[in-house]
């Protein structure tokens, strides 16, 4: 098992390298002039020329790519943002925790609400409970979350004056953003839980459990749910990826200075170093979470754990 984990951790380096190269190449096609961004539109042409030379922007592509990769991966010097001159490493270290707290709390709400909804829907299939849960799930998917975010702010902050409308501070600042962000998660989790629970409830070992005299509640939570977890965990994993992206919107609305707002402002102002390093960090965090998801598979299903141990060499794909 440990060998598998080490292999997966080692694998993250080429992924990060791959992301770095892809984003770097993509951004070089960006129709924008770094000197223009830094010096502003009032600078004359020769001012910009001096700056371009000093930053080595006129070197050929591969030289710049080489510099960038050695800086980032060997010297871990992420350099400074072109626009704000802030050291990228400090701003990321400061912002990553906030995005992480927001994403994890949104994911937690999605799991804590989505899965029970799915189970309730599966248990009384066809009856009212099922229709109510699934109606909520369908509604959750169809509403764009930035629109819902504004509704929530108006309702809870302006009208009821219960929660702060924006900014960062104690935990209460994260409640509204998390709720706004999780409707999509609740919806997809509830639907997935329902369909995989329905499949599991019909299988033989559930009848065996009932024949043993196990309480219906335990049959559902212990026996059925544990077996239905694999596809549910897959949805949680893929949803975590979408969340990291979706949080950008929620962060902008609630003016939470997280990775999302950092990257959006960087993209809008073509602040390439920030976009590149930000993408790499997000990609690493994302693949790290995917590793955790795969480990969850092994924890839940011994057959998969056995495959990991015996395989060791080739990664088992779940998707």
């Amino acid at each position, binding site marked *: 098992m440990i060998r598998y984990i080490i292999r997966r951790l080692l694998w993250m380096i080429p992924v990060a390298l791959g992301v770095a190269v892809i984003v770097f190449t993509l951004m070089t096609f960006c129709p924008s002039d770094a000197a223009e961004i830094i010096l502003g539109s009032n600078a004359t042409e020769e001012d910009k020329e001096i700056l371009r030379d000093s930053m080595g922007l006129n070197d050929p592509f591969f030289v710049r790519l080489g510099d960038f990769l050695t800086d980032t991966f060997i010297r871990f010097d992420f350099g400074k943002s072109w626009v704000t001159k802030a050291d990228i490493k400090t701003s990321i270290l400061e912002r990553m925790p906030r995005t992480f707290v927001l994403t994890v709390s949104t994911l937690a709400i999605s799991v804590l609400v989505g899965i029970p909804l799915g189970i309730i829907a599966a248990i009384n*299939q066809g009856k009212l409970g099922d229709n109510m849960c699934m109606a909520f799930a369908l509604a959750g998917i169809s509403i764009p979350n930035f629109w819902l975010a504004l509704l929530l702010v108006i309702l809870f902050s302006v009208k009821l004056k219960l929660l702060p409308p924006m900014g960062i501070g104690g935990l209460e600042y994260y409640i509204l953003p998390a709720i706004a962000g999780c409707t999509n998660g609740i919806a997809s989790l509830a639907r997935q839980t329902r369909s995989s629970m329905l499949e599991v409830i*019909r*299988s*033989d*070992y559930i*009848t*065996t*459990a*009932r*024949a*043993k*005299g*196990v*309480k219906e509640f335990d049959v559902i939570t212990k*026996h059925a749910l*544990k*077996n239905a977890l694999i596809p549910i965990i897959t949805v949680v994993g893929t949803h975590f990826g979408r969340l990291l992206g979706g949080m950008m919107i929620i962060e902008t609305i609630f003016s939470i200075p997280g990775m999302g707002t950092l990257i959006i402002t960087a993209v809008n102002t073509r602040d390439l170093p920030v976009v590149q390093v930000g993408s790499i960090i997000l990609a690493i965090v994302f693949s790290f979470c995917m590793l955790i998801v795969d480990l969850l598979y092994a924890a*839940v*299903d*011994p*057959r998969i754990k*056995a495959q990991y141990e015996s395989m060791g060499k080739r990664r088992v794909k779940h998707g």
Partner: protein
Amino acid sequence: MAELEKNAGHFLEVKDLTVEYFTKEKVVHAVNSVSFSLEKGKTLGLVGETGAGKTSIAKSILRILPDVGARIVGGEVLLDGVDLIALPEKEMRGIRGNKISMIFQDPMTALNPVQRVGDQIAEVIALHNEGKKDEFKRRAQEMLELVGIPRERYSEYPHQFSGGMKQRVIIAIALACNPALLLADEPTTALDVTIQAQVLRLIGQLRDKLGTSMILITHDMGVVATYCDNVAVVYAGGIVESGTREQIFDHPSHPYTVGLFGAIPNMNEDEEWLHPIDGLPPDPSNLPKGCAFRPRCKYATERCGEGPIEMAETPDGHQCRCCNLEAVIKGEKAK
């Protein structure tokens, strides 16, 4: 749990048990007023084609019919005089796995794939007994050894066991609480022949050792011959013939039973062709009036189609639901 007082009646008595499955379009009459009884320590064989309702009978005794669409419409199941159908769910749970337990047909899917084998045995012990966890674990390990599995494999998972080994674990689970009645639903059908004999011998030994009475569901006459004291032949949701093993094997009197025996190739004669019963079992959602076997019966008469057929006594004293008994017995002798 109320102490079951011994009364003069049978250990287990099933009276007019009727079970129906509901779907939006149609109603399936799986079991139609089945009655039989079982003495303490004895084994009853339920024999019949697949889809005849044998499994539904067993599941309704244990009341684990899938609640979506299945319902016990009528009848009683008396265990030591207590009607299980009327019992509240909480008390019925006390009986399941403790007083009555069940072995299932397909061992490959009957065990929870993500739970350790030993834990699945310990779970049923813990449910019905007081005491500490490791005491349950010790008893579960004893059960494992009882069914011939080394104690060390307690913490392995079902996917590490072969079909036969899994069935042994299921047997261990079923007998862990030393139940009074064991329902075995075609325990060896899914296994290959060599393993079948071993598993059946194991069930037989444990049954004799623990004195458990058993209902053995099968479509294999050989199994009935070696392991069952009494036999009941089930056809289209009803019992068409019942009696002791000797009575049924020596004097099969219901045309369907006769047909069943005819379908078994005889070892000491080189028969050219087997004699399958022609036609197919009736559709359980619209059963023909009168005797369900009439369309496929050689001895069918007008009377068979008129109304419900009563159980009749055969010359050697066992029950048979046929109104044209003499003709069948005469026809049988002529052969």
